[in-house]
């Protein structure tokens, strides 16, 4: 596996998944106030959408590959 520039979308989704998993594993979900579940889910999804909608920072070469190989 090669290292690549940070993928914020994967990172955010991973952290959210990890958090929920730990919560379920510890059996602590029943202690979470239910009135906060809706806002938390909405904030999480919103963050993911914002991150996914960001324009990519990858540079696009000006010329097609193969022209400047001299």
């Amino acid at each position: 596996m090669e290292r690549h520039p940070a993928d914020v979308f994967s990172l955010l989704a991973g952290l959210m998944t990890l958090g929920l998993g730990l919560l379920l594993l510890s059996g602590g979900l029943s202690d979470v106030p239910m009135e906060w579940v809706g806002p938390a889910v909405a904030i999480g999804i919103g963050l993911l959408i914002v991150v996914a909608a960001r324009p990519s920072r990858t540079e696009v070469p000006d010329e097609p590959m193969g022209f400047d190989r001299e």
Partner: protein
Amino acid sequence: MMTAMTPQRSERSDSPPRNLRRRTSDRVLGGVAGGLGDYFNVDPLLIRIGFVGLMIFGGAGLVLYFVAWMLLPAEGHDASPVEAFFRRLGLTPGRLAWLAVAIVAFILLVNSWNTGMGFSINEGPLGIPGVVWALAIVATGVMLVRRREVATGPSMTASASAAALPVAPAVKAPPRPHSPLAWYAIGALSLTVGLLAAFSQVAEREVTPGQFFGAALVVLGIGLVVGAWWGRARILILLAILLAPMGVVGSFLTAPLEGGVGEHTFAPVTAAEVQDEYRSLGGRLTLDLTQLITSPRDIHIAASVAVGQLMVILPEGASIELHTRVGAGDVIVLGSQDVGTSLDSTFVRRHLNRTTFILDLEAGIGQVYVRTEGSF
């Protein structure tokens, strides 16, 4: 006099091999009805009416239309959106089969939960002990982890030779090598769940369904975090989205997963007819004790519904000792209601010289409803 005829899409007959495709033109929505009309040689309007009808009566039309749109390739294309998506992820039919095996094994393992105290050693799906299923999951995980990535040699070679040409009018970027990270994570998920199940067997420790899903999500989360810098594993997000709601629901299934599904009513008349336990997996379980001929001894009953309603009807003025537990839902005891999660309450009312009903009532997700005869 000759008149110009406008070609009708529903009368297409000039294409010898008739393939089922979505229309890309002359369509109303996604071209599904038009494509089906072309294929079956019927007016697409009739198919549209069918979809709308199914949409109104139960909403199935919308689901069917969406599924058809996902599965049918568009005109001029060989692959449907689903096929194209899986191809983009590098999921070959063989790999998809492995994924299906892992998911089915996981579901079977979770379903083998039937004692409320862990996986049963003697019973399991298809009569096979739960521990065997656990080992099967572990084996699946090992095979997935050991699966070697298919080399992308030919396509890479082609790309390299294309790049070496002096003039390449439309050179596409070489395809990104497929990352094995997602498969490692899925394998690790199977391993973790299998080992957790085996642990619950060996150590006789209770592991709830919610904790199994929690362990699976932890593995997926780690895979995604790793994939943020090394390899790529965004496909795991789909799995996480699938498992997360199941985990949340499973975490509230604190009642024993025993009994049948549906509506069951029990109305014992004599003390001998009273069972120690009444269990239901889902639906409504009604326990009518109003006709019970009282006995000099106390009556102990444990009743539970994993998902649904547990209703107990008591004789007027009965002496009772209630202990109720609800994972998520509400408890109504003699007109007093409590709503929320992890509800745990005790209610005691004693009368001298009366039989005392000592009831242990539990609902995972749903309602425990206790009332007396004639009240609602």
